[in-house]
């Protein structure tokens, strides 16, 4: 297992989310993302647990693009990864964001 965390600047979500959202499953080539409210509204805090070693540069690039693409300030993301490709990670991140935004609306 490899674990690391990042705090990425991002525009604040329009309003706070009330509860936690879970997206995806931990199975081979897949991952789960838990989205929860966080204290700081101008940053997104992300903790990554991954079974694949040596891909931290790619993780950071994928996560920075995510925080740039969406206003995710005020969110805390916990990721449990079982060897997903960057394509799957991006898709799950976008799905998690769309789900939690949908619950706001």
């Amino acid at each position: 297992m490899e674990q690391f965390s990042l705090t990425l600047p991002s525009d604040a979500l329009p309003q706070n989310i009330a509860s936690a959202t879970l997206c995806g499953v931990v199975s081979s080539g897949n991952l789960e993302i838990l989205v929860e409210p966080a204290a700081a509204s101008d940053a997104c805090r992300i903790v990554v647990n991954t079974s694949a070693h040596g891909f931290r540069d790619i993780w950071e690039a994928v996560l920075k693009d995510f925080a740039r693409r969406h206003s995710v300030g005020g969110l805390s993301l916990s990721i449990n990864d079982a060897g997903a490709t960057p394509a799957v990670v991006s898709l799950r991140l976008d799905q998690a964001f769309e789900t939690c935004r949908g619950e706001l609306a």
Partner: protein
Amino acid sequence: MNAPDISEKRWDTLARSRAARLARAGHLATGCIVSADDIVQLLEAVIEPGDRVCIEGNNQKQADFLARSLVKTDPSRLRDLHLVQSVLALPEHIDLIERGQVSRIDFSFSGPQAARLARLVESRKIAIGAIHTYLELFARYFVDLTPRVALIAAQAADREGNLYTGPNTEDTPAIVEATTFKGGIVIAQVNEIVDKLPRVDIPADWVDFVVKAPTPHYIEPLFTRDPAQITEIQVLMGMIAIKGLYAEYGIKRLNHGIGFDTAAIELLLPTYAADLGLKGKICTHWALNPHPTLIPAIEAGFVESVHSFGSEVGMERYTAARPDVFFTGADGSMRSNRAFCQAAGHYACDLFIGSTLQIDLHGNSSTATKGRIAGFGGAPNMGADARGRRHASPAWLRAGREGRGDIAMPRGQKLVVQIVETFREHMEPAFVERLDAWELAATANMELPPVMIYGEDLTHIITEEGIANLLLCRTPQEREQAIRGVAGYTPVGMARDLRMVENLRDRGIIRRPEDMGIRKSDATRDLLAARSVKDLVYASGGLYDPPRQFRNW
């Protein structure tokens, strides 16, 4: 005036050689029928050192009994053979080379034997003439690679030697036509000998010998893709293909590769494409094997016509029950023909889409990787602009306008699309600075790196990041950045020029899913018209009979 001396010149050496071979073998046959016990003797009687020999086999049916028998022949008698055949797929094909009976090979595809073949080439045990496309190899059968002896496979024969190939006609007509009309010898293995055939696919006077094989010829179910294995990324890329490409260009006539990416597109037609109002507007006419994953689209009335290279195991009853869609004989079973279907895919389709292992910065793509000489089969004929084409269609004309701009002479272009996830399994990037094909060409002493689709023919790349439209690129730099721009987080993608890529996006050369109105949250497996092989059986009304390895219920 002296007339040239022509008295010594003989014009029938092929016929005399053929007669001598037949005379040597005569005692082994009753009529044209030879016992399986005598087949090795027959091969030794009719094949001579240095002969060009075709052992029929494609990635589907195989003349496997004849291949096994050839390996049992005396290597001191049958040597220096030149194999001219579509595939080197059976272990026996390579065994023949290892036994020193083959000095040269010209072929198209070697999938399962790719690693063994590469080792033999590197150790100089064999010379490769060329790795052809199917149509190219068939063409050379009629010019400079005509077989002296063809070993073919059919479903059944009658006692006269007429052959019934059933749905898996495949390469047989092309091989037999070239061999028999140039003084060659045709030997057919059949599964059964019957009094009356359901239909005649190859007439008896084109066939010299028939042997009933101890076991039915092998057929690989190569085109069966289990919907259960289709990923959400493949669903997303399928949505991109349908909305961003098929709908945009109005693609009606097309060919699909055999991967899961294109299987996903087939399964999205009755759902996603139908919801977009595209029924009857896209994907009506196909050059395609009878893919089980096309069943839901056929049942939904999307598909008007399918012509096939070969058949697919388990699809026999389904194709027979849909004669309006598939090409079928008077006996009710499908007839395939690889040569004609390749021609159809090349000339009569507006789009080819398939997957690959590597794409470089020029858009060249290859499935050749280090230590594997795999070949390409049919993809290069479909995945190439048909320069000889002279009939117009809206999709072809639009691609031509995009690619050539407004020039004096109107001319279209085929859409040639590669669809890949940016990383394959084990985080192998699909985008590379340099294809492994170069290194393979160097180690194997090949004149050409084995490229499946040339960059100059490639018009679009689809990844989970969106579509790159290479037709609209006006400079080599734009083209390179368009490719980097959809290469995601691969090293090639990370090295993109961010500003240039954003400029390409503004101009519609790169289109992201959101630019096409595609919501990623819609990309779930629920969108597939079938999510398992069992679903496909249901969709076919029980007519599809999947091979055992695809049955898990």
